[in-house]
């Protein structure tokens, strides 16, 4: 679906701003909002470009920079930290994916997030809109491997 048709699914009222931004970002294989997206939204909702920009910058789920096809969000809540999210961060580093970076193949971006509410099954992370829990180094590597394999097969 092109950008215009995505926006037009929503009524042009300002309280739809976050929902629209989500829809645009999710439909972008690079998981981000471009300057053109922001202009489009500002025009559609009849609000200034700067106010759209201000909102995008405020919320941590939105990105103005291209990201990997898969955005990994590692939970850094006190419980995930205590049970061992360091294991996850280190494990990812071993597979070549560093916190705060997008991989060269544009497949993964690694970020941190606040409590994902999976505290009973810590440590947890999200990959795009899916949540994975009770992870350790081994499970994590299998998970990353299966995504990469799947990508190769669909190419």
């Amino acid at each position, binding site marked *: 679906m092109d950008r215009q048709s995505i926006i037009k699914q929503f009524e042009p009222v300002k309280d739809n701003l976050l929902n629209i931004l989500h829809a645009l970002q999710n439909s972008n294989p690079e998981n981000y909002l471009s300057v053109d997206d922001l202009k489009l939204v500002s025009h559609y909702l009849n609000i200034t470009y700067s106010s759209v920009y201000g909102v995008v910058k405020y919320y941590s*789920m939105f990105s103005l920079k291209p990201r990997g096809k898969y955005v990994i969000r590692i939970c850094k809540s006190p419980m995930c930290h205590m049970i061992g999210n360091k294991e996850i961060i280190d494990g990812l580093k071993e597979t070549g994916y560093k916190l705060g970076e997008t991989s060269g193949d544009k497949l993964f971006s690694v970020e941190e997030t606040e409590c994902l509410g999976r505290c009973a099954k810590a440590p947890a992370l999200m990959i795009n809109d899916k949540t994975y829990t009770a992870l350790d180094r081994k499970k994590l590597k299998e998970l990353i491997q299966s995504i990469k394999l799947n990508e190769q097969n669909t190419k």
Partner: protein
Amino acid sequence: MISEKRIALKNAGKYNPEDINEYLSLGGYKNVEKALRLNSSEIIDTIISSNLRGRGGAGFPAGLKEKFTRESVVDPSIQKYIVCNADEGEPGTFKDRIIMEQDPHVLIEGMMIAAFAIGASKGYIYVRGEYSDSIKMLQTALKQSYDKTLLGKNIFNSGFNLDIELKIGAGSYLCGEELTLLESLEGKRGYPKIKPPFPAEKGLFGMPTLINNVETFAHIPYIIEHGAEHYKSIGTSDTPGTKIFTISGDINKPGFYETELGVTLRQLIEDFGEGIKNQKKLKAVLLGGAAGTFVDESVMDTPIGFDSLKEKGAVLGSGAIMVMSEERSLFEILYTVLEFFKHESCGKCVPCRIGTSQLMVLMDEAKNIKTDRKKYLEKLLFEAEYMAKSSLCPLGQSPILPIRSIHRFFKDQF
């Protein structure tokens, strides 16, 4: 041995939440049908006399909130709103997620009853952006409710109209604070505002708004079904009813458990959680979330309620119970908690913006010295106290809670 008593989670796990027919066959939506035959004042009186207290953390009487919203304007043609705060982000808490994933319809039913009571015809559920499973479940539930004409115009042929829309947050803890949530819902940055005016008077789009937590709404159908007297017979006199506790950390059986208030931490940890992992001893419980309190053995046998815990220097908050064994460093846990506040401070008011950073400066200094950290605890307390007095919203007012509780209960272990 204590056992579970379920009100908010009464139907959770008993039906397929993606099929409204299954909810209907369990008697779903019959309480809203019943409520629509009552006067709105009868409903509000019932909620007031049930003494239902808001389950979001503050424990404000839910019935009074309804009454204030109802009575804030005389003219019934003035638009009022009902909003569900489903922006669950308090660390250690996942009670609302369980309700939304397993019984989204009880939330919708609770909102419908409250909307009728206050005279609102438009509602919103503001759900956390990271909660993708909850979002999907609510989308399905709302669509099916419309298909069955349980939402929309002339519900149950009563003349009552209600539309509910889903709004998706985008990663901001602060938006869980009610005034900030309303700003965000309007499509703005999540910046807090000064109270008063309260939402009951001037809320969403400047209109009277009732805003409640997911768990609070989930209690309303039960109260309508069984009456205030019955509800009050559950729990304690300070906090009637049940609470969902989310237990995590060094515990054999972490998870979510709903039971009557008046239960103790020891019972929750031993009976539900089956004790501390690896036969270790308990060091501390971080109770109520990051905006919560570290407590020790001396609070373990206190019957839990909003007020009874306050007397002991603790808070119930969201009902998060984060368990730490003797091996854990409380300094390290406090470090992650204060880092969290720093990250989530919006920067609008100076005391919080500078204060949350200053707390981390102190923590980093203390981290490096390792001995005689106590003077740093005093400094942290001083900083957090002025922040609590001068910050605009609950975020800047919160770091004092974990810091003071460490000062009170674990001074020697800092």
